[in-house]
């Protein structure tokens, strides 16, 4: 086992679907953030609307936190099941740790076996709540404020969050604040504070989820139209955009299906606005035909692909990085797809904005791939309103003579006219065509035209590669062992590496956020290392296959496919074992 830091708190709230677990967790996360602590959350839930098992974890620290963390300091549990599960040393929650700290719960829960590492803090949650309202969810507020009291969080900070959450002014907000106060005071009066002390601060932090960050990044990137059909875990982005449509001057439409959604977005981009669509694996499968069409017509298109655990409906509320093969293989024939995989919440915003630029400049489909873990957890972020310059790509002047929509160029990029432009009328065709857009397959196929056009389109790949930023690494300079990760596993991989470095194992990471095309500099980075290890949250190692195919390197593969993401200690152990293999 690895030792976790002292200067941080891991908080968890557990219950059943319908118990308000997620919203309780968010209140706590926001309270941490307003106390100047960095925070990362973790959302564990099931494909059920009421009942079952669900929990939400928040890790907070005055130092940056990179993942949900190991260990568990404070558990708030809304039912007996949660108390039993999370205090069990043989916990079976996909890698999460059991409690070694305090448990806050209603005093009516009495039927449990005492665990050695747990300090039990039964409280009259329902009784207190009952004084203010009949709503059973009010007891959550009481429990949360008790948790806040246990680590010395300023009551006013918590009260502020609670007030806002319940609509600021009005009876409900007041009831919640009053009940919270009583819970806070009760804990202080009856129990000692929890053993860890945290350094609070006045640091300004935004708390935002990965899906929302994608939506926000798109707005920064000039998005004007979002068309989609709801699907978990892509919906957090849809809901964010729909609820901010007026504010951000966006057209948002839920269409009859995914096929329609992507074709609408293509129509929007064709006609000159920035449009985007999004879905998860099964819905994206239905979009694949149109991906090739966008590439053939050379229409910009950003597709948000939020992965969940497959195959098929699979585990719809669980995470996986299992859609890479599908995205790589989307649609028949050869054409350029550009695939981004943000590695954290902030990057979900920045890379989405960048994707919109890249799509419009290269006139080809660009994917922003996340996984459920990234889409549905929140992180604190410092500079959310990042600087960004919109680049709308090459556009011809109105009335330009002898306009060729698909002009053969060295870069492969041709100036793109949009409807409404004077004198640039032309046809965009999913059949193979010549520079004017006229079909070459109808009467007489000129193989030379076909070859030229195919090569023109494919040339965009090299043009794009030439401008790729260097691949980022972590503690890699002197590393004998290199761990490849892509997308959301960055934080946990870095932490695992830090843990291993403490044991003097020379290991570093290659952190991929631009998945395809592959950056040729990877070839140099992997040279003369003792071992290349690839970490993926899927069964077969989909990125691993790409890497091997391109760089012909032997690798060790670490996978996880139970629906949960990696936890740092668990991963460090796996990496250590892979090194020993």
């Amino acid at each position: 086992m690895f030792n976790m830091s002292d200067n941080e708190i891991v908080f968890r709230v557990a219950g059943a679907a319908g118990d308000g677990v997620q919203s309780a967790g968010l209140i706590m996360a926001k309270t941490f953030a307003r106390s100047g602590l960095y925070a990362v959350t973790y959302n564990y839930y099931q494909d059920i609307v009421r009942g079952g098992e669900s929990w939400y974890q928040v890790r907070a620290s005055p130092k940056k936190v990179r993942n949900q963390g190991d260990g568990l300091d404070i558990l708030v549990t809304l039912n007996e099941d949660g108390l039993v599960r999370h205090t069990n040393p043989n916990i079976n929650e996909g890698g999460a740790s059991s409690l070694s700290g305090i448990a806050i719960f209603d005093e009516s829960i009495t039927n449990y076996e005492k665990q050695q590492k747990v300090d039990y803090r039964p409280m009259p949650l329902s009784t207190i709540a009952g004084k203010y309202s009949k709503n059973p969810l009010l007891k959550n507020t009481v429990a949360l404020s008790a948790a806040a009291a246990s680590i010395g969080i300023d009551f006013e900070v918590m009260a502020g969050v609670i007030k806002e959450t319940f609509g600021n002014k009005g009876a409900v907000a007041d009831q919640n604040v009053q009940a919270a106060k009583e819970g806070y005071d009760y804990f202080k009066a009856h129990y000692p504070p929890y053993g860890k002390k945290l350094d609070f601060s006045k640091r300004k932090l935004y708390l935002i989820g990965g899906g929302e960050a994608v939506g926000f990044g798109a707005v920064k990137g000039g998005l004007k139209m979002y068309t989609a059909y709801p699907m978990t875990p892509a919906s957090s982005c849809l809901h964010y955009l729909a609820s901010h449509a007026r504010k951000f001057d966006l057209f948002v439409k839920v269409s009859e299906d995914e096929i329609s959604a992507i074709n609408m977005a293509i129509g929007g981009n064709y006609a000159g606005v920035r449009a985007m669509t999004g879905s998860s694996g099964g819905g994206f499968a239905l979009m694949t035909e149109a991906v090739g069409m966008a590439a053939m017509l050379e229409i910009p298109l950003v597709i948000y692909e939020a992965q969940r655990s497959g195959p098929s409906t699979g585990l719809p509320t669980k995470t996986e990085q299992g859609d890479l093969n599908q995205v790589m293989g989307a649609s028949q024939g050869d054409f350029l797809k550009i695939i981004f995989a943000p590695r954290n919440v902030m990057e979900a915003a920045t890379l989405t904005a960048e994707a919109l630029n890249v799509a419009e400049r290269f006139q080809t489909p660009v994917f922003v791939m996340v996984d459920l873990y990234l889409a549905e957890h929140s992180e604190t972020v410092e500079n959310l309103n990042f600087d960004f310059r919109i680049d709308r790509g090459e556009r011809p002047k109105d009335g330009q003579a002898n306009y060729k929509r698909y002009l053969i160029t060295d870069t492969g990029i041709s100036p793109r006219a949009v409807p409404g432009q004077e004198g640039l009328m032309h046809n965009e065709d999913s059949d193979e065509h010549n520079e004017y857009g006229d079909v070459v397959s109808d009467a007489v196929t000129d193989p030379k035209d076909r070859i030229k056009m195919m090569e023109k389109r494919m040339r965009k790949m090299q043009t794009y590669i030439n401008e790729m930023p260097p691949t980022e690494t972590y503690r890699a300079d002197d590393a004998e062992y290199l761990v490849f990760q892509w997308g959301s596993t960055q934080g946990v991989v870095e932490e695992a590496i830090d843990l291993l470095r403490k044991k003097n194992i020379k290991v570093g990471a290659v952190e991929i956020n631009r998945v395809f095309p592959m950056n040729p500099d990877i070839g140099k980075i992997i040279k003369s290392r003792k071992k290349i290890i690839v970490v993926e949250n899927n069964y077969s190692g989909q990125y691993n296959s790409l890497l091997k195919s391109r760089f012909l390197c032997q690798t060790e593969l670490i996978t996880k496919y139970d629906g949960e993401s990696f936890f740092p200690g668990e991963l460090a152990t796996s990496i250590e074992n892979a090194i020993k293999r």
Partner: protein
Amino acid sequence: MITVNDFNGKVKPDWCPACGNFSQLTAIKGALTELQIEPKNTVIVSGIGCSSNLPEFIRAYGFHGLHGRVLPVASGVKWANSDLTVIGYGGDGDGFFEGTQHFFHTAKRNVDITYIVSDNQIFGLTTGQASPTSEIGFVSKSTPDGNIEKPVNPLTFGLAAGATFVARAFSGDPKHLTEIIKRGIQHKGFSFIDVMSPCVTFNKLNTYDYFRKRVYKYEAKDLKDFSAAYRISEEWGDKIPIGIFYEIESKRYEEMDPVEVEGPLVTHPIYSVKDEDLEELV
């Protein structure tokens, strides 16, 4: 002054001689000219099929996309720039098989698109399989023992979906066809025009003669009378009515969306995020 010449494309249509698509091409150009709509503001979105090759043959903005996906693309175009005149064009296979779903929902939304279907009651481009409008007993490559599936009635379907303009025309009557298309384009909202269009190569049943013997011009007493429209739409056999069957005024989707209503989306400035916008996340 816009003349028909302004719409003449440089690519010659490669349809079989006498194919019903020719007169639709002419009619579309004619209607646009009569309405003095500029080529630069005209977008023709098509699917895949013989008919769908049309955008290549007209000087305008053409989008020759995927089989069945005419209307979602056309909706996206319209929503991006509502100043454009957007015409959806495709085959019966395209619209009433692969694209059924989009036809239904786009009509229901009342997006301001003129949707013209070249209905030859067969799959032309793929060399002659039964289509959704092929008649019972029709022998084709996919139904060598005769079609056993009842044909779709595109008109009652359009009505049930909620189209605010429903009409039938015939490729063999180009003047009437032009008039109907003109009215369809003028209509504010979703207009649907089913054009009976002989495929001279593969459909030896529904020929020009077949229709010439049967079609007659229907004049609605009250275009707003849904029941009457439904009834006339059901007529098919010895007599086949052509004309406008139904037209009502109803709010377009573009008028109802709070963002769209502010004017063509392409003209909206890119939103510049202010720090205050993010206070909700603190």
